[in-house]
């Protein structure tokens, strides 16, 4: 699994947002919803606000071998759909690219 991922963000505010995913994306959400599965093949990485090894997002990330950054407070407010970000999974950091 890659330690550094760059990509364009899709911020999930409601389950309808999963249906708007058309291309590879970095998913940013508070937590995940079952509808995530319709877009799972387009998810490059996941960034979620909650932080728990047994939360849905963590389980799905393991099952589908997706890198995940958990415990990013306010991620859905800080990152908007269309933002480009760089995630370093070793250092557990995410930053917006200009």
């Amino acid at each position, binding site marked *: 699994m890659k330690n550094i991922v760059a990509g364009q963000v899709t911020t999930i505010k409601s389950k309808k947002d999963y249906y708007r995913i058309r291309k590879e994306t970095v998913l940013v959400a508070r937590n995940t*919803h*079952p*509808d995530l599965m319709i877009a799972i093949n387009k998810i490059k990485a996941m960034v979620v606000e909650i932080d*728990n*090894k*047994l939360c*849905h997002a963590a*389980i799905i990330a*393991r*099952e589908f071998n997706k890198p995940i950054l958990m415990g990013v407070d306010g991620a859905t407010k800080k990152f908007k759909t269309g933002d480009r970000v760089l995630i370093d999974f070793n250092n557990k950091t995410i930053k917006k690219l200009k």
Partner: protein
Amino acid sequence: MMELLKYTYLLDVKGIRKNIELLWSRYQKILDNKKSSWEDLNEARAILYFIGYLYPERIALHSLASRIKHIEPRISLDRFLRAIDRSDRAILGKYKNNDNFNKLKEFYLAVKDIKNRVKNNAYLDEERFNRFYSKLKPKDYF
């Protein structure tokens, strides 16, 4: 809930599964009954909170983290969870005859089964619960 805790302490996966299903059945019964009261809905809320959050994300996770330390050869919790979720043949093969590992694996699968349960296109039928709960919520509730 006390029974579920008891079987978790005992790591009796059969008892754990049975008690999770009893809670799920009760929760579904409340949501299925159009005559369920505000008090019933709060019982459903307690069950939902317990099986959807408290039990898997706190109690079961803590239990897994404590017990994984006793598995030989040593394995981290992250590696254990990943091995099961990814059906990692190398790791699962290595522990194939390890009873404690296999018991923990069955426990994790039971927890994951309830945590990931989807009904009516929502985890743990949450949307149906939320609609019903909002409908019965008293205006002066605080």
